[in-house]
């Protein structure tokens, strides 16, 4: 290889790497968030054993302590929450209530942990288990997260997060290893909607206290 061509290639690679790192930093900066927040969401799940996509909507609440409550309002009221090291689940219609250490929950419960990392911008947690690739095109940005081989569990999902100029809106696509997908469209909740729910009250309800 000619020395000039080699130098050009090296320069090109370095530029590409730095350019990618720059995009990733920018995307991660968009994800970063601290303190309390409320989102409304629409969820679409493609289950292997379901005949059609299943849809739900509700609100998600997070706080600075790392608590995440997902309150499904439609089609029925279901609370799933993580607080401290515990996971809570309460399906009022089916009268099903579970609480367990997060470490005890199975792969499906890992989703809510990832969700917490995404919503709260816990980028270090995400980077520990995933290879991240960011892209920014005009006003649109996206982050593709691929489970690191050997580090994430064998059933760890791949995740795509995307958004546009509106910092309050995001789209999250979670693709399970078995082909099942869950898509969330979330946006910051209106103040009035946020005020209707509080984390302690929902945790109390989920815990059955």
């Amino acid at each position: 290889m000619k020395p000039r061509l080699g130098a050009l290639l090296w320069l090109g690679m370095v530029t590409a790497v730095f350019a990618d790192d720059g995009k990733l930093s920018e995307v991660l900066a968009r994800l970063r968030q601290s303190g309390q927040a409320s989102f409304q969401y629409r969820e679409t799940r493609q289950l292997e054993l379901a005949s059609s996509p299943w849809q739900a909507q509700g609100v998600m609440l997070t706080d600075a302590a790392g608590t995440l409550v997902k309150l499904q309002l439609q089609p029925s009221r279901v609370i799933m929450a993580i607080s401290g090291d515990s996971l809570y689940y309460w399906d009022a219609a089916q009268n099903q209530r579970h609480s367990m250490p997060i470490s005890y929950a199975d792969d499906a419960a890992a989703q809510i942990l990832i969700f917490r990392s995404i919503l709260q911008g816990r980028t270090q947690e995400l980077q520990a288990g995933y290879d991240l690739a960011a892209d920014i095109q005009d006003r649109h940005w996206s982050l593709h997260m691929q489970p690191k081989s050997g580090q994430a569990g064998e059933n760890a999902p791949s995740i795509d997060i995307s958004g546009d100029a509106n910092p309050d809106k995001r789209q999250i696509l979670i693709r399970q290893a078995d082909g099942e997908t869950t898509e969330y469209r979330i946006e910051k909740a209106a103040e009035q909607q946020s005020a209707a729910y509080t984390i302690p009250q929902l945790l109390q309800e989920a815990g059955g206290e």
Partner: protein
Amino acid sequence: MSFVWRKRWFLLLLPLLLAVTLWQIRVESDLNAFFTHTDDADAKLLSGLLQSGELSRRYLLVVEKSAAHAEDAPGLAAFSGKLIQQLAQLDQVEQVWPAHQPPRDWLNASQFYAPYHARIFSLNPEQDAAALFDQEALPRRAEGLKQALLSPQGGFIKTIAKQDPLLLSLNGFKTLQAQFQQPGDAGALILQSRPPALDSAAHERLQAAIRARFDDLNQAAGQAFSLSMAGVPVFSVATRDEISRDVALVSTASSLCVVLVFLLLFRSFAALHWLLLLQGGAFVVGILATQLIFQQVHSLTLALGASLIGICVDYPIHIMAHSAKHRTSPLANARLLWPSLLMGGLTTVIGYAAMGFSGFPGFEQIAVFALFSIAASLGLTRWLLPALLDRTALHIADLPGIAGWVAFCGRRRTLLLSLIGFAAVLAVFSLPQLRWMDDMQKLTINMDAIKQQDATVRAHFSSIEPGRFVLIRADDFETALQRAEAAERRLQALRRAGIVGSYHGLFPWLSSQALQAENARVYDAALTTQFQDAWLSALNHAGLSTDKLGQLTPAGTAGLAPEAVLETPVRHVLSGQLLAGQQGAALALWLGDHDPAKLAAGLQGLAGTRYFSQRDQLNKLAGQYRDRSLQMLAIGIAVMGFLIWLQTHSLKNTLLTLLPSLAAALFIFASWALLGEELSFVHVIGLLLSISLCVDYGIFFIENRGRDSNVTYHAIAASTLTTLASFGALGLGKTPTLPILAMSVSLGVTLGFLLCPLLIPKTGPA
């Protein structure tokens, strides 16, 4: 061999023997080996359960948050979670989990049953079919399935639903959750250890490691938490500590008392050091022989063996007393007294042998230990002692009152014999009042504080008791399973009646082929076209895939084999219930709170099924030991009498020799009867020992080979004192068997000693 060479050989061989013994010895502190190891089938079962039963290896841990730190400290659940992670890393820990959450692999093991759903869905398939195959309920079940797939347990449910769309295989597991505590007590943890429950050395290390891990975490949490432990291993370690203390105390006190008595009598350190070396040699021979025969020496053998010092020392003392009084050589006295010494040693060995045959496993070891120690002591006394004492000047102190008592007995013999005769008649009449101990717990160490802690800790858990269960026996495993299923149906009824709170059954983890066939029959009958259509409709309505969940296949013929089940993690779940080492098959259904009498009555009529209580089993064993020990008492006396008759060829002398010891035993039994003392086999064994010792006194007194009753009686007094000193030291022990033996033997030898000059006429010049 000359005296010089005898001494040299002894001094050369003793350290060698000691070194070999120290190299070979393995001291065992497993109480099970001492108390319950017998050939009886139930005792074997009990022994196996105590040795390695899953529940017996289980620790119950309770972490509590102290009120003083309640505000600042981390949450109890978080702390317990960290502790679980720490404890799981310990080598001796098999598994540790929160009391309200079964280990995840137990839960996952239920997925293994999905393909067999049609064969295991109910213990009472006919009865449950109406509810399980109710077509009206199918829409609700389909909706429930969908919600389960959407829940955090979705992955788990999906695996099952693909093979078992109706989730029938989970039906039997619904009760599993009831075996665990309801959520709320985050500090209640269960730790499954690896070492057998009674391997107290391993458990002592494990308990120290558990506390160390807890202390480290607690320090980081500002000392906000406390830890309590319960379980069989906790008792086993505490017992070991007590026994170790007893062994050290009894051995030291016994040796010291014998030394003091000897010094008081002979005032010679030179004689003392030879005597101690001689006894040390006999003791080491006893230990080595026991080790070689049993492959281990129990620490209680060492404790009780220490009392043998007081017996073995009698043989040299007789020679030394005669040598001191008559100013004759020890060699001459060894030759003179040898027949009496041999007979005395033989009767003592018979006493210990009878004790060994009482059925109490720990006494077998002690009997062997005694046999070899006494034989060695006799041999060394006969052939070595004269060499050791060749140049040692011997003196013996006059014991006050000895001559006076002999003279008094001679003067008032008629009156005293009348009184003794009258007392003997009264004693015989009081014997029916004897009370027998029916609770073997009274023979175990009092550990009220630990029992209290155990009760407090257990209050945090569902109350499955490790010591009481329903025992199922059968010639083959299939029959045993069928019997277990019948017993479970009965237990369900008893639970509804409030007689038992909860129980750990085997269904649905294991199902008999008969029950599987019954389930399959009911399932196939319920699987009508109409039912299948209704299920498809319910799936459609719930938005679930009819392609993947709509096929309800017939039960088929392939059954679920127990061997296949036991290759999965289910073997851990059931390991405490499949009782190994039995002829045929034995299964256990563990019980929670229950009324023993009503439960036992409720199980009546079920083949091969009965209520088993470890405590009752121990008491039954105690009863067997007592009966055997009484038989052995009679046999031992008969054999001793026969041997004495063989030597003397005189029935009168035989009876006279036995009389003081028999009279002493009678009076002691009568005293216990009048005092209301509860008697156990240990009391009887103690008296048997005292008889075998007192017979020695009778032999020495009646043979009176020195032809001087005063000297003979002095020698007997000296040996009585050493026996009292050594057996009296057993009274310092906290293990109840030791004080009982101390009392029985001490009373027996004292009375026997006092009665000798009264009941046996003098045969030589005073």
